[in-house]
C-alpha cells in the first residue's frame, strides 16, 4: 500500500510546521554543536548485551583451568573451562566459544573494560550506568545510548524505528528498574525503544493486530481517513496538533505496510540460514513456561531465543535500522547472573551465544555490511569466584563461597567483579584481530594495563557513528552530554584508521 499523504495539507507545509511545533512542544534543543566533524565509519550499531554479569575468565579471557574435584579449594579456581585457540595467534577463548573464536580475526577484543565502583552491587544500577553512561540516581531522565543515537542521527530508513530493543521482558524481576534506562529519557519518546521481547513474535509488532487480516486492516484505515475527511472543519482547534497527530499515524501505517516490515518476520528466513542461528528442535513457545530454577535448566530451555534475536538484528540491519540492542535478557539470578551453578550454566550460556554471534558476523560480512555496521558485545561487569566488587572492597558478598567445593553448584564464578571485563567489537571501523589491554593471570584477574571506562567505550561507539563525545542537549537549561559530562575520549587504538 503506497503511502498517501493526507489530502488536506500540503506535505511541505506540514513539514515546516513540524519544526516550529517541535520547538514549541519543548523538544530538547542541541546545547552546543561541537566543532569537529567526525566522518563516521559505521551507519548502524548492534549491541549484544550479555545481561547479568559475564565472567571474563570463563569466556574471552581464560586463565588457569582447574577442573572440578570434590573438596577442591575455592580460591584455586580462576577458570572452570579449559581454553581453546582462536583465529588470531596467541589469543585464546574459553572452551565452548569455538565459533566465535573462528571470527575473532574480524574483530577487536577489549579485555580491560571497567565497571564503576558503586558499593554494594545492584545489577540495575550498573546496567543503567552502562546504557546511559551516567550513574543513577540522576536528577534528570537520562537517555539510553540508543536514544542518543536515534536523536542525533535519526533513522536510516524512515520506515524502521531508529532504536530497537530485542529480547527483554519488562514484567519480571527488576523490570521497572530496567525501564528506567531503556528509554530516551528527556529526549522524548520519539527516540524511545521499539521493544520486541520475543524475536520470533517480532512480526506481530509490525502487523495488523492479532486476528485481523491485511484486507481488514486496510479497510479500517480507509474508513478512518474517510471519517477524517467527513468531519466538519474546525472541530479540533489546533491545526498543528491535528496534523502532527495524523502524521504520526501515517508513519505507523507506513511502517506496517512497508517492505521493511518483512524484515521483522523471521519465518521468511530460509530454513538453512535460520538453523545456523538456532539449535535444532528449539521451541520458542516454551520460553514463557520454562522453569526458572537456578540449576541450569532454564538456560538450556531458552537457549535459542538469543540466536533468534541475532538473526532479527541482522535482518533489521539489512532493512535500515540505526541502533539495535539484543540482550540475553536480565532475569535476576538467571542467565549470566550466576549466583550458583556457574560452570553448569555457562555451558548453556555459551551455547546460547556462540553460534549465532559468529553467524551474525559472517552474514554481515557476506552481505558487505560488516564494514559499516558496528557490533558491540558487552556486559555490566564481570564475575569472580572469591572477590565481590573489587579487591579490598568492604561490601557484603552476594554469593556464598565455601572454602572447599563439595558440590558442583559452588563451582563457578558467583560473585560480582568490576575491575575487568571483556568487550568485543566487530566492523564499523574497528581493527581486525586486535586485543586491547591485559588482565592479571592470578587473582585478582584485574586490568593491569589499558583500562577502558564505560565513558571512553561510549565515546568510541559514538565516534564510529560520527558523533562527538561532547555532543549535548539542553534539559532544564543545562547541557546533558552524550558521554559523561562530555569527557569521553574515544580509544583510538581500537580504530583501524585513526
Amino acid at each position, binding site marked *: 500500500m503506497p503511502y498517501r499523504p493526507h489530502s488536506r495539507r500540503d506535505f511541505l507545509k506540514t513539514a515546516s510546521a513540524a519544526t516550529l511545533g517541535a520547538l514549541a512542544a519543548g523538544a530538547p534543543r542541541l546545547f552546543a554543536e561541537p566543532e569537529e566533524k567526525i566522518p563516521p565509519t559505521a551507519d548502524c550499531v548492534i549491541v549484544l548485551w550479555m545481561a547479568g554479569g559475564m565472567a571474563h575468565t570463563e569466556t574471552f579471557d581464560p586463565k588457569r583451568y582447574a577442573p572440578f574435584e570434590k573438596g577442591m579449594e575455592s580460591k584455586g579456581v580462576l577458570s572452570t573451562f579449559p581454553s581453546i585457540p582462536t583465529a588470531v595467534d596467541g589469543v585464546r577463548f574459553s572452551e565452548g566459544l569455538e565459533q566465535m573464536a573462528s571470527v575473532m580475526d574480524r574483530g577487536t577484543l577489549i579485555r580491560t573494560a571497567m565497571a564503576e565502583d558503586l558499593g554494594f552491587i545492584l545489577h540495575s*544500577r550498573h546496567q543503567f550506568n552502562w546504557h546511559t553512561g551516567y550513574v543513577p540516581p*540522576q*536528577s534528570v531522565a537520562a537517555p539510553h545510548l540508543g536514544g542518543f543515537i536515534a536523536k542525533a542521527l535519526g533513522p536510516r530508513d524512515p520506515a524502521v524505528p531508529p532504536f530497537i530493543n530485542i529480547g527483554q521482558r519488562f514484567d519480571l524481576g527488576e523490570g521497572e528498574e530496567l*525501564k528506567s534506562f531503556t528509554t530516551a529519557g528527556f529526549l522524548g519518546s520519539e527516540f524511545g525503544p521499539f521493544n520486541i521481547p520475543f524475536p520470533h513474535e517480532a512480526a506481530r509488532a509490525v502487523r495488523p493486530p492479532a486476528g485481523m487480516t491485511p484486507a481488514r486492516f486496510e479497510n479500517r484505515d480507509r474508513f478512518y481517513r474517510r*471519517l477524517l475527511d467527513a468531519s466538519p472543519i474546525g472541530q479540533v482547534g489546533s491545526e498543528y496538533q491535528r496534523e502532527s497527530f495524523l502524521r*504520526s499515524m501515517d508513519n505507523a501505517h507506513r511502517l506496517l505496510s512497508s517492505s521493511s516490515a518483512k524484515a521483522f518476520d523471521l519465518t521468511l528466513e530460509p530454513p538453512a540460514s535460520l538453523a545456523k542461528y538456532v539449535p535444532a528442535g528449539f521451541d520458542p513457545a516454551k520460553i514463557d513456561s520454562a522453569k526458572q530454577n537456578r540449576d541450569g535448566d532454564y538456560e538450556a530451555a531458552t537457549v535459542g531465543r538469543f540466536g533468534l534475536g541475532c538473526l532479527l538484528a541482522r535482518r533489521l540491519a539489512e532493512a535500515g535500522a540505526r541502533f539495535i540492542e539484543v540482550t540475553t535478557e536480565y532475569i535476576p539470578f538467571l542467565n549470566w547472573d550466576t549466583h550458583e551453578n556457574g560452570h553448569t550454566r555457562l555451558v548453556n550460556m555459551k551455547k546460547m551465544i556462540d553460534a549465532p554471534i559468529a553467524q551474525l558476523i559472517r552474514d554481515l560480512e557476506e552481505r558487505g555490511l560488516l564494514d559499516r555496521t558496528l557490533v558491540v558485545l558487552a556486559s555490566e561487569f564481570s564475575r569472580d569466584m572469591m572477590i565481590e566488587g573489587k579487591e579490598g572492597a568492604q561490601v557484603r558478598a552476594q554469593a556464598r563461597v565455601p572454602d572447599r567445593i563439595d558440590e558442583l553448584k559452588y563451582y563457578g564464578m558467583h560473585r560480582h567483579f568490576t575491575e575487568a571485563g571483556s568487550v568485543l567489537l566487530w566492523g564499523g571501523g574497528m581493527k581486525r584481530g586486535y586485543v586491547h589491554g591485559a588482565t592479571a593471570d592470578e587473582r585478582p584477574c584485574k586490568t593491569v594495563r589499558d583500562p577502558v571506562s564505560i565513558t571512553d567505550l561510549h565515546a568510541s561507539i559514538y565516534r564510529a557513528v560520527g558523533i562527538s563525545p561532547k555532543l549535548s542537549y539542553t534539559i532544564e537549561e*543545562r547541557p546533558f552530554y552524550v558521554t559523561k559530562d562530555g569527557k569521553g575520549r574515544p580509544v583510538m587504538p581500537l580504530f583501524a584508521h585513526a
Partner: protein
Amino acid sequence: MKLIPPLLFAFASVAAAATSAKLPPPATHLVDFEKEIKPLFEAACIKCHAKGKDKGGFSLETRDVFLKGGDTGAGAVIGKSGESNIVELVAGLDPDSIMPKKGTRWTPEQVGLLRAWIDQGAAWPAGITFAKPPPLNLTPRQVALTERPSVHPIDNLLASYFAAKGVAFPAPVEDRVFARRVYLDLLGLLPTPEQLDAFLNNPASDKRAQLVRQLLDDKRNYADHWLTFWNDLLRNDYKGTGFIDGGRRQISGWLYRALLENKPYDRFVSELISPTKASEGFSRGIIWRGSVNASMLPPMQAAQNVSQVFLGVNLKCASCHDSFINDWSLADAYGLAAVYSDEKLELIHCDKPTGKTAAARFLYPEVGALDPALSKTERLQRLAEIITSPKNGRLSRTLVNRLWARLFGRGLVEPLDDMEKPAWNRDLLDWLAEDFTAHGYDVKHTLEVITTSLAYQSPTVETPPEKAEYVFRGPLTRRLDAEQFADAITTLADDWSRLPYSLEFDFTAGGLVTGMKMPEWIWTDEPPQLGPQRLALKAANAAYVQAKKDAAAAQKKSDDATAQGTPPTDELKQELDRAIAAVAAAQAQLIAAGQPRTASADSILPETDRHRVVFRKSFHLDVVPAEAFAAVLVSQSWQVQVNGREAKAAQRDGARNGRIALINIQPFLKAGDNVIIVDVSSHTEKQLNDIERGKYPGSLIHLNKQSGLAFYARLVPAGGGEPLQITTDATWRVRRAPEGRWGAVDYTDAEWAQAQPLPAGVAPVDEGPSLEPIHRQDFANIPVELGPQLVPIVSTVAQPGHIRAALLASDPLQLALDRPNREVIIPARSTAATTLQALELTNGATLDARLHKAAAKFAPQAARDVNAWIDRIYRYAFSRPPSPDERAVAVEMLGQAPTADNIADFLWAIVNLPEFQLIN
C-alpha cells in the same frame, strides 16, 4: 612614625612608575560608568564577585564594597589607576594572578577604560548595583482591580492586557465545546450524552458556573483525575528503583485521602515537608543500594524536590557547584539539605570534599529564619511553617501557575519550575495567588475561579513560535494524557476494573464508602504444640545420643582395663559414673522437652513460636452472590481455602511478602453451607524446610510478638440488595495445626477452640520471619504495623468498583502515551505525537483487546438500531452528533448487520481521530 629611608621610597615610586609603564594607558575621554564599565564588570566579574558571591573576599556589588576590596587589598585607589589592585589583575601583569580566572582576558582598551574611570574619580551612579536582585514572585502582593462591575477578576485583568496588546477579547466557545473541555479538565472524563444534554438544556444563565461547581463536588472523580497530576509532581506511584531494598515509600494512601477531602494546600504542603509516616515517602526520597553521589543523597533529594515542586526553584545544578543557570549557590542547596539531614553535612564541590559544614537555612531568609540549632524534627516543622506562611508569596504563585498551565496549556510563568522568571502578566499571577491564599489555600476554589472566567472559555489558539515574545490569546489545544485516554475508553465501553493496584487507598475518606462492618483482630491463646519444642527435642535427643556414646566409651575404657588385669582406677570409675549419670540426665531432659508446653495465663498475645494456626468460619448462603471479594490481613504467611479449594490473592501489598491481600472468593462459593479456612504459618513451607536443613542457622523462631488475623468479605447479591459482610470475630474457630501437608486439618467443630479477639486498640505487628542476616541488615526490613492498613483495604473491598486509570497499574498503551516512569519529578507531560505511540495505537494488543471487549458488548445495541448507536458514540466521544457525511461513512463502515469486528474497527477509528485525542 618610621621614616621610610629615602632610597626605598624612591625605589617604591620607581617601581610604581615601572608598573605603571607596563599597564595599558588610560583612555582619554570621560568614561560613562553605566555604558562602559558596568558591561565589563558584568561580562568578567560578577559571576564570582557579585550576586551574593565574594570569591577572595572581594565583592563589587556596590561602590563602597568595591573600594573596600578583599583578601589582597583595596579594589582601587581613587585617582591612581596605576596603583589600583583591580587594574593590575585585569591587565594580567602577574601571570599567577590574572582576572578573570575564567573567560576572556581584558583587552588593553578595556583596561584603559577602567584606568580612566578610576583616575576620573570612579563615579558610580546611585542605584546601580550588582547585588542579587530581589527574587521575583516572592513577596505577596495585593492587586487592585480596575472598577469593572460584574466582570470576572481574571477577565478584568485581561481586559487591560488585551487592550495594551491590541488583541480583541475572544468570544466564548459554544456550550458543547465548553462542556467537553471542562469535564476533561476538572474530572478527566468525557461527559456522557446524558450529562451533555442536561447541560445543554439547562436554561439557567449561570449554567457554566453551575456545571463547574457540580464537577468540583464530585469528590471521587476529582480525586481520581488529579491523583495523576500529583503523582507526577510528587514522584509517587512507582514500583521501580528503591522498592527492592525498602528504600522508597509510596504516599498513595495519604495523597488520595488528601484529594478526596480537598485538603487545604498549606496543610498539604506542610505534611509533605514535615511529614507523618503516611506522607514521608516524598521527602524521604529514594535510598539507593550502594554508594551514591553526594548531590543525590536523600537530604539533597529532599532539598531539590521541595524547592522544585513548591517553590519553583531548581537546585539541581547547585547541588554540585554554584549554579551556572541561576544565582543559587552550593551553600544554598546544602543549607536546605541540612534541614533534612540527620548528621552534619559536609559541602562536596564537584565530588571533592571542601571541609566546610553546611548550616541549615531556608533559601529565602527574608521570608523566615530557620534556627540551625533545632533538632531535625523541629527544623522540619519550622521549614514547613516558613514555606506555608502568608509571607511566602512564592508558594501560592507556584501552585496557581501550575493550575493555570494545566488548564491553558501554558503557564503564566514558564518554565513551571522556574518561578524566578517574570510572568507574562504579573497582576494576573499575583491576583490569583492572593485570592488562593485568601480562600484558605483551597485548590478547588482556584480551579473554579479559573474555569468560570471568559478567558478559560475562549477558543483554543495555535502554539506560538518559541522565539517570539509570548502573547496570551487563549488556551492552547491540549491532548488527552495517557490516563485520560484510558478512562475515555473505559467510560465509552463501560469496561471498568474492580480493584486498584494499591491496597493503600482509603475510600472512606470524603465519605465515599460508609456502612462497613469492621472485622476484629483475632488470634488464639491455645498452647503451642510445635516450635522451639521441636528443636529443643532435637537438641535434647542429640545430647542424649552423645551422652550414651560417652558412657559407652567410658564403659569400654573400664572394661579394657579390667581385661588387661588392671582394675579400673578410681578416676576411671568416677568417669564412668559421671557418664552414666549424664545419660540419665539427658534422658530426663529429653522427656521434659517432649512435654506439652502451656502458655502463660495472663498473656492473650503469647510469645508465638514457629507454628501453624488454622482459623475457620462457617456460614450459610441461599444463593451464590454475584460478587464476593475478601481482604485478609495477617502478620504471618497465609493461605485461604474456600470450600476446600485454595483461593489465591488477586492483589497483594508489595511491601511485606503479601501479608495483606485481596482475594476473589466468588468462584468458590456455593448455595448451602460454606466454610472459609485461613491457614496461617509463621514461615512459608520453603522457609521451614530451609530452617530444617540448617540453611538459616541463626534463626530459631520468628519474631512476631503481636500476631493477629483480620478477614473481611463482602458478598453482593445478584440483582442488588443488602450485601452480606463476613468479618473475623469471636465466632471464628481456631486450632493449632499439627505437622503435615496443608489441608490435612480436621474440620469438625468439636475439637476447635474459639478465636480470641485482641484487646481493643491492639493490632498486630508483622516483624517478618527470621532470615539469614544478609536480608535483614542491609534491607530496610522494618516491622509493619497492620492496624493502619485495615480501614483502607476493607474500604477497597466495600467500594463499588469503577476504578479509574490513575488507581491501576500502567499498561503498554499508557506507557506508549507517556505515563511516566517516576524516577524524576514530571511537572508536565509531553504532548508530542510520536510514531511509537501511533504504532501502539494502530496494532497494540492493549487497545485492540479493549475495543474488542467493547464491541462484543455493543453488538446487540448496534444491531438493533445502528443509527442510534452511531449517534450515541459520536455524542459520547465528541460531544456532538455526527454530520450527515460522517453518518453516511459510519453506516457504510458498520454495514446493516454490524459484526463485532466492524464495531471494533469503527471504535478504533473514532478514538484515533484527532478530535477525540485532543482537548479543544
